[in-house]
């Protein structure tokens, strides 16, 4: 394959450059198609391996793949969309700057989650006094047409999650949405599996109380109307 970085400027160098770019993009498309067949964790691992390679924009792919989940995790800890995005941005910038730790990690996805968690906790500690508000008006949400009926429920769920202590909220996020076992969650959080399990239990119990209250309030409002 002719190099697109040739320093000599022959009459055909531009053609070679275009050919090189085309082949590179073609290889990226083929690679992307191959990556899509993998599981989520395997996709993250495949991208992490390529991090830091020159000429390959892996960061954008990693963002597209993981940003929603990372922001979700960070929102559960910081309770704020802006702070959560700051945490995710800080983490991914560090990953772009120093890709080696993520690349060398046995399981890059839990490692990435732990990085986001640490950054989110740091931001949370810095802005602790501003965490009083539990409104979800700052959250960027997705409203599907077929899920409009459930939007109130989703909103109530998120409002309830943001009232939980961060230790319980993060366990619920990792257990329910990331579908991790308590052992895996314990690795991410540096805690024992039993501690994680009890946090989950308590957190879910609190959620049940709050969601029930919300459901009752919604029912009452419906009755008044």
């Amino acid at each position, binding site marked *: 394959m002719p190099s697109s970085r040739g320093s000599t400027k022959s009459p055909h160098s531009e053609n070679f450059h275009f050919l090189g770019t085309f082949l590179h993009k073609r290889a990226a498309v083929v690679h992307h198609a191959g990556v899509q067949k993998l599981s989520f964790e395997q996709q993250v691992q495949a991208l992490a391996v390529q991090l830091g390679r020159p000429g390959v924009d892996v*960061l*954008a792919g990693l*963002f*597209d793949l993981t*940003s*929603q989940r990372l*922001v*979700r995790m960070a*929102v559960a800890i910081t309770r704020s*969309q802006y702070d959560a*995005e700051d945490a*995710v*941005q800080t983490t*991914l*910038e560090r990953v*772009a*700057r120093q890709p080696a730790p993520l690349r060398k990690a046995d399981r890059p996805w839990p490692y990435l989650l732990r990085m986001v968690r640490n950054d989110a906790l740091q931001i949370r500690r810095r802005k602790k006094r501003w965490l009083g508000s539990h409104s979800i008006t700052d*959250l*960027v*949400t*997705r409203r599907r047409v077929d899920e409009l009926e*459930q*939007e109130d*429920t*989703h*909103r109530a*769920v*998120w409002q309830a*999650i943001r009232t939980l202590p961060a230790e319980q909220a993060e366990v*619920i996020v990792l257990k*329910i*949405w990331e*579908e991790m*076992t*308590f*052992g895996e969650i314990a690795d991410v959080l540096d805690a024992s*599996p*039993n501690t994680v*399990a*009890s946090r989950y*239990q308590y957190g*879910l*119990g609190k*959620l*049940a109380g709050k*969601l*029930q209250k919300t459901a009752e309030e919604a029912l009452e409002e419906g009755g008044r109307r």
Partner: protein
Amino acid sequence: MKRHSHQGDDLPEDDFLPGDLAKIESLVRAAGDYVQPSDDLRPRLLESARGERQLRRRRWVATRVCAAAAAIGLLVGPQIVSHRSAMAEASQRERIARAVVAQQQNAHRSGVDSVYWELVNAFWQVRQEQSESLRALTGPSNAGQRSTAQSSTGQGDAGEQNASPDSEQVSTQNATPGALE
């Protein structure tokens, strides 16, 4: 304590996930995609990463340039020093040469270098005075012939100094036979 397994985990059983909690879990699971990253997070992140990459590249280039400059300095520095000392020596020689030339010009201006020509002129003047005194002794009639003989033979000096009246006559006769006639 009884334990039960939930997705491969050993957990305390204490009423874990009864019917209500299972419903809550499913409610929470359904709300997983509700929160999204904002639209500007992606460009913000990529722009920031690109800026940082450029900054790192600039730093890398600057470091390499500094290292190359230091290496060139180490390699070329001693040569420059030696070249400068050589130039200093050359300029010293040049200074001496200029001083000599200036001295010669001063001598020329003050006329010191014309001493040799003055000596030559003085020598010719002395010779002229001697020849005139000899001419006065021999008489004014032979003066023109003597001068002619001197100029033609070129050996008049020795002959004039040691000459007797007879020999001079002989020589005069040889020199100008036509004059006797």
